[in-house]
C-alpha cells in the first residue's frame, strides 16, 4: 500500500453505509473507482432449504421473513404459486385486500428508501422528515394487520383479516396526510440544489444496459423501460384498478428518485380506488393440507422490482422445492456497471439507489482457493448425518428426544 497508487478498500460486510451486511471490495485510485467486487453470501440464511422442511402454512410465515420491508410481497408471491398448483379460486375481496396491503407496503418502502437515500448523501434532515411521515403508513398497517412489519395477512386461499368501515376511514385520512407530504418531497427532490448535484448524472444505466443486465423495478423504469408486473401480468386486483406505470428518462440516481416519489402518488390512487370498489364476500376459501403434485411460477411487483417464486409440490404437505428470486439479485449486477469510473463518494448512493435488500438476495457463494484441500461438496443427506455425528461428538444427543417427539406425535 505504501508503494502503489491504487488500493482496495472494503465496504462491508460491516460498514455504516450499508443497512445490511454485504461485502463490497472497491479498488480505488485516489477517489476514483477502478472496479467493484460484490461478494454475496455473508447473510445467507438457507430459507429455501428450510421451506422444504416445513408445511405450506408454516412456509407462509417463514417466507414472509425473507425480507422485513417487503414481507407481504414475498408471502403473496409464494401463496399465489401454491394457489395456482392447488387450483384454488381466491375470493375477489381477498384479492383487493392483498392489493391494498401491497400498496401500503410500497408506500412504506419508498418512504423508507427516500430517507436512506438522504442519509447516504449526508442529508439527514430528509431522513428525519420522511421517516417521521412514514409512521403514518406504519400506523395504518398496524391498525389493519396488527403488525408494523411481517403482517401475516396471507393464507393459502385468501387473507386472514378483513378491513372494516372504521379502518377504511382511517386509511383515507392517513392517505390525505401522506399525499400532501409526498407533494412536498417531490418538490424537495426535484428542486434542492445539493440533492440534484449529488444525484444527477450519478450511476447512469442506459436503456440498453437495463435490457442487457435485466434490471427490474424502479431501476429499470428510471431508464425508460416500462417494466412492471402489475401492468404486464396483472395479479391480485391490479387488472381492475387504474394506475400509470411511472417511467423517467434520466437513467441515473436522480431518475430513480423521481420514479419512486411519483410512484407514491400512484399508490395512493390505487388504494383509494381499491377501497371504494372493495367487493363484499368471503375473504378466504378452504385450502387442502396436501397440495397436489405440480409446479408453478409466480410473479409479483415488489417495491424494489419483480419478485419471482417457483414452487414445486410432490403431493405431500411440504413443498419439494421453493426458489426465490428477489428483485435485488436482478439489480445487483447493474451496480457494478453503474459504478464504473465514478467517485468513491457516489458508491453509497449508487448502491442504495437500487434499494438493495441483501438478506433476501443472498446466495451461498463458495470461494475455493486452488490449493484448498479442506473444502468439499456434500449432499443434503450427508450433511444431515454429519451434523448428527458432530453433535454426538460434542456430547449432544437428540436421538432419545426425537423418539419421544415421534411417539407423542403418533400417540
Amino acid at each position, binding site marked *: 500500500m505504501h508503494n502503489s497508487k491504487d488500493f482496495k478498500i472494503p465496504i462491508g460486510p460491516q460498514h455504516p453505509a450499508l443497512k445490511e451486511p454485504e461485502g463490497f471490495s472497491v479498488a480505488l485510485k485516489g477517489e476514483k473507482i477502478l472496479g467493484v467486487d460484490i461478494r454475496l453470501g455473508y447473510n445467507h440464511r438457507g430459507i429455501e432449504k428450510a421451506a422444504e422442511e416445513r408445511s405450506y402454512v408454516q412456509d407462509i410465515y417463514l417466507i414472509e421473513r425473507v425480507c422485513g420491508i417487503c414481507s407481504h410481497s414475498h408471502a403473496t408471491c409464494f401463496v399465489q404459486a401454491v394457489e395456482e398448483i392447488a387450483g384454488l379460486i381466491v375470493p375477489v375481496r381477498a384479492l383487493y385486500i392483498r392489493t391494498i396491503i401491497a400498496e401500503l407496503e410500497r408506500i412504506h418502502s419508498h418512504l423508507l428508501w427516500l430517507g436512506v437515500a438522504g442519509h447516504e448523501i449526508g442529508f439527514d434532515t430528509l431522513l428525519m422528515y420522511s421517516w417521521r411521515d412514514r409512521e403514518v403508513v406504519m400506523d395504518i398497517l398496524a391498525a389493519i394487520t396488527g403488525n408494523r412489519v411481517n403482517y401475516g395477512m396471507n393464507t393459502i386461499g385468501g387473507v386472514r383479516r378483513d378491513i372494516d368501515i372504521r379502518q377504511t376511514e382511517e386509511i383515507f385520512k392517513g392517505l390525505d396526510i401522506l399525499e400532501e407530504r409526498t407533494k412536498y418531497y417531490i418538490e424537495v427532490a426535484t428542486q434542492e440544489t445539493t440533492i440534484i448535484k449529488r444525484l444527477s448524472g450519478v450511476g447512469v444505466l442506459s436503456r440498453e444496459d437495463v435490457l442487457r443486465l435485466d434490471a427490474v423495478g424502479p431501476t429499470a423504469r428510471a431508464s425508460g423501460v416500462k417494466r412492471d408486473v402489475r401492468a404486464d401480468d396483472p395479479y391480485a386486483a391490479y387488472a381492475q384498478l387504474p394506475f400509470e406505470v411511472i417511467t423517467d428518462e434520466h437513467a441515473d440516481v436522480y431518475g430513480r428518485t423521481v420514479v419512486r416519489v411519483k410512484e407514491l402518488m400512484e399508490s395512493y390512487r390505487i388504494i383509494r380506488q381499491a377501497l371504494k370498489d372493495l367487493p363484499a364476500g368471503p375473504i378466504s376459501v378452504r385450502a387442502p393440507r396436501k397440495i397436489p403434485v405440480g409446479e408453478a411460477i409466480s410473479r409479483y411487483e415488489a417495491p424494489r422490482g419483480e419478485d419471482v417464486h417457483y414452487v414445486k409440490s410432490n403431493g405431500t404437505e411440504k413443498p419439494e422445492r421453493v426458489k426465490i428470486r428477489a428483485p435485488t439479485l436482478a439489480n445487483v449486477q447493474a451496480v457494478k456497471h453503474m459504478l464504473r469510473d465514478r467517485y*468513491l463518494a457516489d458508491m453509497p448512493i449508487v448502491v442504495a439507489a437500487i434499494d438493495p435488500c441483501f438478506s433476501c438476495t443472498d446466495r451461498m457463494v463458495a470461494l475455493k482457493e486452488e490449493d484448498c484441500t479442506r473444502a468439499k461438496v456434500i449432499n443434503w443427506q450427508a450433511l444431515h448425518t454429519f451434523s448428527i455425528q458432530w453433535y454426538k461428538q460434542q456430547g449432544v444427543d437428540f436421538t432419545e428426544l426425537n423418539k419421544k417427539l415421534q411417539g407423542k406425535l403418533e400417540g
Partner: protein
Amino acid sequence: MLGALFYILVFPGFLFLVFSALAAEFIDRKIYARLQNRVGPPWFQPLADFIKLLAKEDIIPAESNPKMFQVAPVFALTAAITAFLYIPLWGKEALLSFNGDVIIVLYLLTLPTLAFFIGGWYSTSLYSRLGAVRSLMQLFAYEVPLFMGILASALLADTWSLKEMAVFYTLHPGFWMFNLMGFAISLVSLLGKLEKVPFDIPEAETEVVAGGFTEYSGRMLAYLRLTLNVEMVVGSSLLALVFFPFGLDLGPVSGFLLFLFKVLFIIGLISLLRTVVARLRIDQMINFCWKYLVPLALLQILLNLVLKGTLLK
C-alpha cells in the same frame, strides 16, 4: 504572574473555552435536532460524552505510528486553544496582541486540520488515510476564500492586527456592513474547516466510516472532538470580531452579552446551513470553492480597495 496564569488557564483561556466549546456543541446539536423535528440532546450531553470518552480505554492500532498517532490530537487542541488568546472578545483588547496576529490566528486555525491529517495518515487504516487525504484536499479549497474574506476586512482597516481592526471599526461605525459578502464567504468556508455538512467530506460516515478519526478512541477521540468544538467557538468569535465589530466599547457586562449574542448567531447560522443541504462530493466542493467563493472574495477585496481610495481618503 498569577494573573497571567488565571487569564490563560481559567478566563478567558482554557477552562472558559472548553466549557463554551461544549456549550456550542450542545447549541449546535439542539438547533440541528429541532430543525429536523427531533427532541435533541439534554444540555449536559456534550459534557457527559466528553467525560465518558475520557474514561474509556485508548486503543492504539498495532500498525500505526504510536507517537504521531498520540501527538496529533493534543497538538490540534493546543493550536485551536492558542488561537483564542489573540482574539479581542468584548473589548478592543485581546490577551495577546501584536501587529500581524490576524495571520497567526488563521495559521493556528489551520494547524488542527494538519494534525487531523497526520493523525489519520499515521493510523495506517484505509478509511483513516482516505479521510486524512480528503481533509487535506479540502483544506486547499476552503482555506483560500477564508483567508481572503477575513483579510479583505483587515485591508479596509489597513492593519494586520485584530486589536487595531477593532479600534478602526469602532472609529468608523457602519463600515462593517461593507464586508457582509466577505462574511458569507468566510462562514461557508468555516463549514469546511469545521467539517460540517455540506463539507463533512473527510468524515462522511457512509463513505469512509469516520475518516481520519476512525481508529481513535477514548481520550484521544475526546480531544479531537473537543478540538472541533473549540474551533467552532474560535472561528465564530473571529468572524464575530472581524465582521460584526460593533458595540465593542459597551463595557464588560453588556459587551460580553453582545459578544455571546454574536457568537450564538453565527453558530445558529452554521446549524441552519448544515440542516438544509446535502453533502457535496470532494470534486464538487473544490469546484464550488474555486469557481464561486474565490472570485467573490476577490470582488470583496476589490470593493474594499475602492472604498479605501474613496471614502477613507
